[in-house]
C-alpha cells in the first residue's frame, strides 16, 4: 500500500491536535456556538408527522459497509428508533450490506429496548437485507416505500444512482424526506426530491446535534479550525503563486 508522505503526516497531526484541544477545552466548560442545521432540526417533526398520520418510518443506511460513515448513520438511526419507539411507531430499515445488517439489528433492538418496547415489532418485518446490487436495492426499497406508504423517509450514508429511485419513490408516496449524505454527486438528486438535504461534513456532525456532548461539539470546532488553516493556505498559496510565479523554489514549495 501507499504510505503517508511527510506533508500528510504533518497535516494529520495538526488537524488531530486542533480537534483534541477543542474537545478538552469544551469539556472544561468552554461555550461553543453550533450553527443550526435545518435538516437535522426537523428530524423530530418528521417522526411526529409520521406518527400523526399513522404511517411507518423508514431509515435508509445507504451502501456503507463497516466504515465510519456507517457508524455516523447508525448513531442517528439509534436516535430515530428511540423517538419512534416512544410513540410506538415501527422503523423500517432496508440494508445493502450483510455486515451493516448485523450491526443495525443491534442498534434497532437497543432503541426499542431503551424505551421499554422490546418485541413490539418483529425484526424480520422491519429490518430487511435487500441486496448489494444497486438496481435491486433501489427497486426493492422503492417498492417497499410505496406498498407500506411510508410517512417519513430518512436517507443517511453513501449512495450511488439508486438515490434518485429512493427519493422519488418517497416523494410520490408523500413521505417527509430528509437526506444526509457525504456523496457529493448524489446531492442534486436529493435536493430536488427531498424536503431537507444535509451534505458534506454536516453528515459527520449529525450526531452532535441530538445531544450537546462536549466531545462532539468540541470536535466540530476543531474541524472548523482545521478548515480555517486550509483556507488560509489556499488563499496564501494562490496569491504567492500569482505574484512570484517566476521563482521556481516557491513554486516547488507550493506544489508540495
Amino acid at each position, binding site marked *: 500500500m501507499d504510505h503517508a508522505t511527510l506533508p500528510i503526516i504533518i497535516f494529520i497531526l495538526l488537524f488531530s491536535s486542533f480537534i483534541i484541544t477543542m474537545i478538552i477545552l469544551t469539556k472544561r466548560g468552554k461555550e461553543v456556538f453550533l450553527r443550526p442545521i435545518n435538516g437535522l432540526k426537523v428530524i423530530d417533526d418528521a417522526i411526529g408527522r409520521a406518527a400523526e398520520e399513522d404511517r411507518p418510518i423508514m431509515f435508509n443506511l445507504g451502501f456503507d459497509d463497516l466504515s465510519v460513515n456507517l457508524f455516523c448513520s447508525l448513531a442517528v438511526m439509534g436516535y430515530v428508533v428511540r423517538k419512534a419507539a416512544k410513540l410506538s411507531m415501527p422503523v423500517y430499515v432496508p440494508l445493502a450490506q450483510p455486515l451493516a445488517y448485523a450491526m443495525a439489528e443491534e442498534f434497532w433492538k437497543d432503541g426499542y429496548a431503551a424505551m421499554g418496547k422490546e418485541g413490539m415489532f418483529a425484526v424480520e418485518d422491519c429490518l430487511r437485507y435487500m441486496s448489494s446490487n444497486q438496481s435491486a436495492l433501489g427497486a426493492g426499497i422503492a417498492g417497499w416505500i410505496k406498498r407500506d406508504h411510508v410517512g417519513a423517509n430518512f436517507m443517511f450514508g453513501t449512495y450511488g444512482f439508486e438515490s434518485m429511485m429512493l427519493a422519488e419513490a418517497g416523494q410520490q408516496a408523500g413521505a417527509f424526506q430528509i437526506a444526509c449524505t457525504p456523496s457529493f454527486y448524489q446531492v442534486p438528486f436529493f435536493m430536488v426530491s427531498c424536503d431537507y438535504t444535509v451534505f*458534506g461534513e454536516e453528515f459527520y456532525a449529525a450526531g452532535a446535534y441530538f445531544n450537546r456532548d462536549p466531545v462532539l461539539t468540541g470536535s466540530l470546532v476543531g*474541524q472548523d479550525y482545521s478548515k480555517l488553516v486550509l483556507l488560509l493556505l489556499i488563499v496564501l498559496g494562490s496569491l504567492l503563486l500569482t505574484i512570484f510565479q517566476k521563482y521556481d523554489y516557491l513554486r516547488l514549495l507550493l506544489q508540495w
Partner: protein
Amino acid sequence: MSKRNILKIIAFVVGLYFFLEYILPEKVGGEFDSYEVNSPVCVEKQGKKLQFYVGNYYKGRGNIGRMVKTDSGWKKDPKPVLQRSLFLRFDQYGLAEPDCAMTPGGLTLLYMGQNEKEPVLCFAESSDDGKTFQKKGPAVFATNDLFKVSENNPNGFLPDKIKTFAAEYANGQWEVFLFTMTYRVFRAAGPDLKHLRLEEEPLVGATLTEKSPNAFDVALEGGAPTLFYIMDREILKFKKDASGQWTPLTWKAPAGNGSNDTMYAGGRYNSADGTLYLGTRQTQKGRPIDSPFETTLCAVKLRDLSDGSPLATEMTFYKKVGAQPRPTYLSYGTEWAGKFLTVVGSFAIFIAMINLMLFHGKKIYQSALNYNAPLGEEKLPGGGAPMRNFLKNAGYSAVFLIFLAVMIVCALKGQTDEAEGTGWKTTFDFLFNAIQAPMGSAVFSMITFYMISAAYRSFKVRSLEAGFLMAAAIVCMVGQMPIGELLASLVPESWKLLQLPWLSGKLLSVLNAAAYRAVLIGTLIGSVAISLRIWLGLDNSVYSSVD
C-alpha cells in the same frame, strides 16, 4: 470493566496498529534497487564508461542509479543519483526509461517522469560525471515557434501520448524521437531541450512491426537514424535501404543462459561499443505479489552485417537486483485483518439470508393459512379468496425463494472447473446473463423517468435561485450538445462568453470544481474527526447498543 470499555480498548489498539502501518514503511534496510532493475543506458566520457539504470525499491517507484566500469566489472553507487520528488509533480511516482547524452556542459539525462496523470518527458543535468543531477523540468515540443506549455500539457504540443523516447546530441543539436502509443515515431530537433521543433509527419508509421515493442532506441549513424526495437526475446534493427524502405536485421535470444528471460524494459544502444544494454525479467509463474522480480541487466553486442550473419551472438548478464530489505511485519497484520473481515462478512451474508428467508417464508406461511380458510372466514386481512390472494400476498416471496434455491444450487454445481459445458453451468449463465443483468439494466434505465419528473419539479422558476439553477442547467446541457457547437460557430471567437460550450466548460471546471473541492475538504476533515473520536473512545454514540 464494562463491555463498552473493553470494546474501546480493542478499537484503540487496532486503530493504533493501522495508524502505524500507514505512517511507517513496510520494510526497512536493503538497497534502493532491491525490487527491480531495468532500462540501462551506457555512455562514455573520456574513456570512462558510465551506466545509468532504473532501480525500484518498491514496484512503480523508479530511481536512477549509476554504475562505473572498473577493471573488476561494474561498480554501483550505493545511493541513487536521481530520485522521484515530492516537490515536482512531474515525477512524483518515479522515473522510468532514462536516456543519456554527453553535452558541452556535462551529462544530460532524460527520463519519463511518472505521475498521477500522463508520463512527462523530463531532463536533468550533471557536471560531475552523473554523481549529482539538477532537475530541469519537462522538455518542450512545438510544431511552430510558440513553445507553449500548460498545466495539462507540460511537454507542450505532442502528436500523441508518448510511450517511450530516444534522444541523441550531436553538433550542438538535440534530436529526440518520440515513440507514441499508436506505435508511430516522431522526430523533433532543437538547440536545447526546452525548444524542440517537432516534425508534423511521423518518421515511421504504425506498420513497422505488428505488435508493440517492449523497448525502443534510436542511434544516429552517419546522420541517418537507425531504430532498435526489442520484442520479448527478439531484437530488431531497422535501417533505411536505398529505396527508402525500413529493412530489419533481427536476432532472437538463444536458449541456454537466461533462456527463461524476457527482454522487457529499456533498451539503449551505445554506438561507441556497439552494444545494446537492456533489462531482462525471469518468467515466474505463481510469483507472489510484491515479491521482487528476478530482473537482470544485460548487454548484447550487436554487429551490423547484412550478409545473413546474426545481428548478435551473445548476451552478458551483469547486474541483478540489490540486497533485499527486511519486512517490519506491520503489513502482515493488516492482511490478516482483511482476511478476518472477509470471513466475518461471509458469515454476515448467512445472517442476512436467514433474515430474507424468514421474512418471505412467513409471508408464504400466512398466505397458505388463508388459502385453506373457508370462504367468509378470514384469518388474516386479504384472506378467503384462494389462489388470487395467495399470489397477491406471497407470489413474489415464492418466486424469490424458488430463484434463491435454484441460484444457490446452480452456483455450487456450475461454478467449478469441471462444470464447463454442463447443464448447471449453462443454467447459471442463463440466469445471470439473460435474467439478472437485463433486469438490472431495466431498473437503471427507469432512473431516466424519475429524473424527468424531478427535473420538472425543480426547474420551475419560483425564486431567483431557481432561476440561476435553470439558466446554468440550460447552458450546461446545450453546451455539451452538437447544437451548442453549431451555435458557438456563429459567434465571433473573441466573444467567448456567448459561446455555450466554453461557458459550460467553465461552469463545470471552475465553479463546480471549486464547490466540489470545498465540500470534499470539509467531508474529509469531518471523517478524520469522527475516526479520531472513535479511535480514542470519545464518541459514545457508536457504542450505544453495547452495555
